[in-house]
């Protein structure tokens, strides 16, 4: 059994309702979990216990603010993509992901020869010059394992909605 299948068994219908009730955000009232409990006809203890369990098991990544990079002045967002050897990608990915200006870092499927890139790192800056300096730092981290890279800047947001489950 894959780890993700094991996680699945931890979610029941009540959890699913709780996820639906909170994925848009927590109530902005002094006792938010009590408010959710009232809305869902549960006890506050049950709401808190279930959220804590989902946090511990990793179903909830974190609870907190999600900053809007663009609105905060980080207007340049570059999707940097790199072709690195599969044997080294986990080690290199950890190093790139740890850089403070990298917000997301993933290994993704490649489509050679058209799309040879397997390492994706999203970088954010206030100016293009700042982002270009960040890209140089990633290139230094990868060193001779960098077999080619590109930077795809976003030119327009065509759609942006919260993930819905």
């Amino acid at each position, binding site marked *: 059994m894959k780890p993700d299948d094991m996680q699945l068994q931890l979610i029941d219908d009540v959890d699913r309702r709780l996820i639906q009730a*909170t994925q*848009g955000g927590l109530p902005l009232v002094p006792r938010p979990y009590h408010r959710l409990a009232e809305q869902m006809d549960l006890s506050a203890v049950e709401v808190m216990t279930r959220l804590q369990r989902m946090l511990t098991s990793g179903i*909830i990544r974190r609870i907190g*603010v999600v900053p809007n990079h663009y609105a905060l002045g980080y207007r340049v967002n570059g999707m940097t993509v790199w072709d690195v050897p599969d044997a080294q990608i986990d080690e290199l990915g950890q190093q790139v992901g740890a850089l403070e200006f990298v917000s997301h870092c*993933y*290994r*993704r499927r490649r489509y050679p020869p058209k*799309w040879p890139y397997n390492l994706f790192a999203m970088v954010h800056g206030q100016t293009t010059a700042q982002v270009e300096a960040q890209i140089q730092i990633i290139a230094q981290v990868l060193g001779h394992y960098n077999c080619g890279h590109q930077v795809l800047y976003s030119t327009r947001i065509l759609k942006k909605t919260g993930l819905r*489950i």
Partner: protein
Amino acid sequence: MMDAITRKIINQLQGDFPITEQPYAQVAERLGITETELLQQLTNLLDQGLLSRFGPLYHAERLGGGLTLAAMPVPENKFDQVAAQVNAFPEVAHNYARNHELNMWFILATEQPERIDEIIQEIEAQTGLPVYNMPKQAEYYLGLKLEV
């Protein structure tokens, strides 16, 4: 442009929000403001769009759903039409134009993992264009470190 409290909220509240009776009061004390001020600040920051959300951030794949990044090469003269076709799928959560031959990049999120392939086929059939599905194979970081 940004006051000290806003900065503190953004820098210190990206994780670890407590699951307790009165979590805002706890956090407010740590930030040196009142519970009422914190609630007001969060409301304002959300209204102004400086925060996209406040609350639990779920790990979509662990909920059993499908999630992927997909890219398409779209001819410029068809771009708006294809964008409308792609965006019409409720499963398309984000969609960005980017400066590359693969110039349209979107996130697909589905309740059932097998729906990902079906939707990709539907988009290909509707647009007559290839869709490159680039599922995540490993994750190295999901940031909570933006510092303002």
